[in-house]
């Protein structure tokens, strides 16, 4: 949202107040602040993380979009960039990191693996996409996505933030508690999602042999 839009709320402003006060809506000023300083979690999983570093380096310079402050601790991060293959051994930790992030929080699935398993989908230790566990805001295709694609994805996220409304966002919605806290998966004989325990038990009981 550019400055002109931000400063034209649709009301008539008396001439004497023009250029003295700005009137806007809470949603707009909130979204403007949010989208201009998205702090990603410093967290690389695989190949895509290298392109993420390249996007931060001099040629692509993601800092131009207000996203250069990578935070290694989830407590200070707004956005989780899932940059690489999500494995069964890693997914409990990713979910824990997500749970530790303060709201508002966004998840971007970077690359084919994070979006749907990618070339490794058939692997026995691979989770076919982080969206099986976390609510994903933006998917970036590619293997790995180029830095340009990553920046395009980040701009898409900014566009999404622009359209948010405080009254509707999921983290203030009391009925949707699940989307803020995700139960942490457990490593058993295979990966177990606590939300599906009953289902797993029923299917295992019905299994042949």
């Amino acid at each position, binding site marked *: 949202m550019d400055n002109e839009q931000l400063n034209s709320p649709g009301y008539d402003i008396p001439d004497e107040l023009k250029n003295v006060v700005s009137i806007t809506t809470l949603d707009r000023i909130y979204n403007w602040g949010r989208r201009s300083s998205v702090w990603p979690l*410093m*967290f*690389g*999983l*695989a*190949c895509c*993380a*290298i*392109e993420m*570093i*390249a996007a931060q*380096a*001099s*040629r692509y310079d993601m800092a131009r979009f207000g996203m250069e402050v990578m935070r*290694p601790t989830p407590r200070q991060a707004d956005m989780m960039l899932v940059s*690489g*293959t999500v*494995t069964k*051994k*890693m997914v409990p*930790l990713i979910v824990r*990191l997500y749970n530790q992030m303060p709201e508002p929080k966004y998840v971007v699935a970077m690359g084919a693996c994070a979006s749907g*398993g990618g*070339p*490794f*989908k*058939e*692997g*026995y*230790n*691979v*989770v*076919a996409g982080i969206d*099986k566990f976390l609510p994903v805001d933006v998917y970036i295709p590619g*293997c*790995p996505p*180029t830095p340009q694609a990553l920046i395009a994805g980040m701009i898409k996220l900014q566009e999404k933030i622009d359209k948010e409304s405080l009254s509707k966002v999921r983290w203030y919605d009391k009925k949707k508690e699940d989307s803020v806290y995700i139960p942490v998966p*457990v*490593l*058993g*004989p*295979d*990966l*177990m999602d606590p939300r599906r*325990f009953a289902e*797993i*038990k029923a*299917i*295992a*009981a*019905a*299994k*042949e*042999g």
Partner: protein
Amino acid sequence: MATPTTTATLDLAARFPGAVSADARPGYKGWIVEKDKLIEVATAIRDEFGYDHLTAVTGVDYLPEGKMEVVYHAFKTTGGPVLTFKVQVPRVDPVEVPSVTSIWPGAEFQEREAWDLLGVKFTNHPDLRRILLWEGFEGHPLRKDWKEAFYEEDAKPFKSRWPEGKHVMAEEKNPFKDNINFPKDFDPEQWVPEGEAALYGALARYQVQEGSLKTDHIVINMGPQHPSTHGVFRAAVTVDGETVVSLKPVMGYLHRNHDKIGERNTFLQNMPFTDRLDYFNSMSNNFGYAVAVEKLMNIQVAERAEYIRVIMAELSRIQNHLVFIGMLGNDLGMMYTPALYAFEERELILDIFEAVSGSRMMCNYYRFGGVVRDLPEGVLEKIKGLVFERLPVKADELDRMLTENEVFVARMKGVKVIDAENAIRYSITGPVLRAAGVPYDIRRADPYSIYDRFDFDIPTRPNGDLMDNYLLRLDEIRQSLRILQQAVKQIPEGPVMTGKPQYQVRVPAGESYGRVESPKGELAFYVVSNGKPNPFRYHVRPPSFVNITALEKMCVGTKIADFIAILGVIDIVLGELDR
């Protein structure tokens, strides 16, 4: 060092009648050792025959023959080809083989991997736990009778996709509607996770109190999400004050099942998967796999393609070492500045990769018998500009900026990484071995491709401290530039591929161990073919994984801050560490 002055000629069968026999299967070479005599024979291989460096340990599950085979590869640090020896045991649980860690401690993690993935129990192993998967995982995935949740067929191309093309999502075929599988009547709520008692148990064994002052030991878990572990590596460290008392690496957080997927793929389909092993150096990975399969197919590589391969592999080495230097700066707290310098040059090299292959990182450029396409117009001029003008200047610039930086030198000098003797014992390869003073480089010791035609040095450094490891990378950048300067001058015209390009290559039955000097050390592929379109066994011997075996040895007794720096100079990359 264990290298003797005179080396006996290698005839193990004559030396150990009855205990060793030559491997007579067609396409196979090496020796088959009786299980009970393994320790005795292995000791002789090291002490009498001079094979002081055990480079790879892996297993093959010969289900049709009802045998489990453990394959060892060793070489002499004075040069020469690898020696292959094997132990065969009946495939009846428990599959037990004596551990060779008492002879070559570097076998520790590779034996743990064979236990984890193949279920080979190594007796007398100091710490036999699962390494890539977690305790409690059901089964040993690389066994031929183990099937993953998304199992469709034994070999690609799957009939559902080709030629009929009636593919349904894998999720819909699995009863659990996801990539999971559980035994019958399994109840998740009754499951008690094994947790990490085994890991902490292994740590605790080393906690010996010294002196009269009783101090508390604290266990610190670094990673898998940690800014200095280069990805999802984790180390459980016990510290006494600031001093590291014991350390256990924990890995597998990026275990993407290359070996299992590789057995389903056709030979050519594995090429793009090798890109994603060491994702900084996809060209080097392609090189290793191409060398391994070409050995098995016994084909010549087109002359021009050999030069293109060397050019790409050396450019890859330069950008890897540039990133190494930049990232080492980050690890030491010089945030970002050296990394930004490094990435500026790296982008120029990636431009060349993108021009020849279409992708910046995942090049998938090599083919069996050549490369996939010729250099596009203008690329050779670009490379010449880089290797004659820009990169030598930039290497000097980086040298000036860091090597003469007093703070940097004070931090790096004298912090020991490893000495030559231990580096060999722990199977370390690559720059870390050379920085400890051992002039071992596969390009010279066991030349592959056309490296014997170029004039270049194998740099070494005497001290094996952090500073030497950093300086050695700079030396190697300069030597790579020397090779490149010769290669771009000598490159001939001609075809870039022998024979017609084909999707389905014919690979005769047999085994092959193809190794190249990747920027991180010895990258090798052990491929077993049974004449079918898919490899029977596809194993990657990654340098990062084997080098990390000595991490505890390197770190115990140093300060915890040095652990970060030492991990930095080993230059691990998780894609190939966990595979």
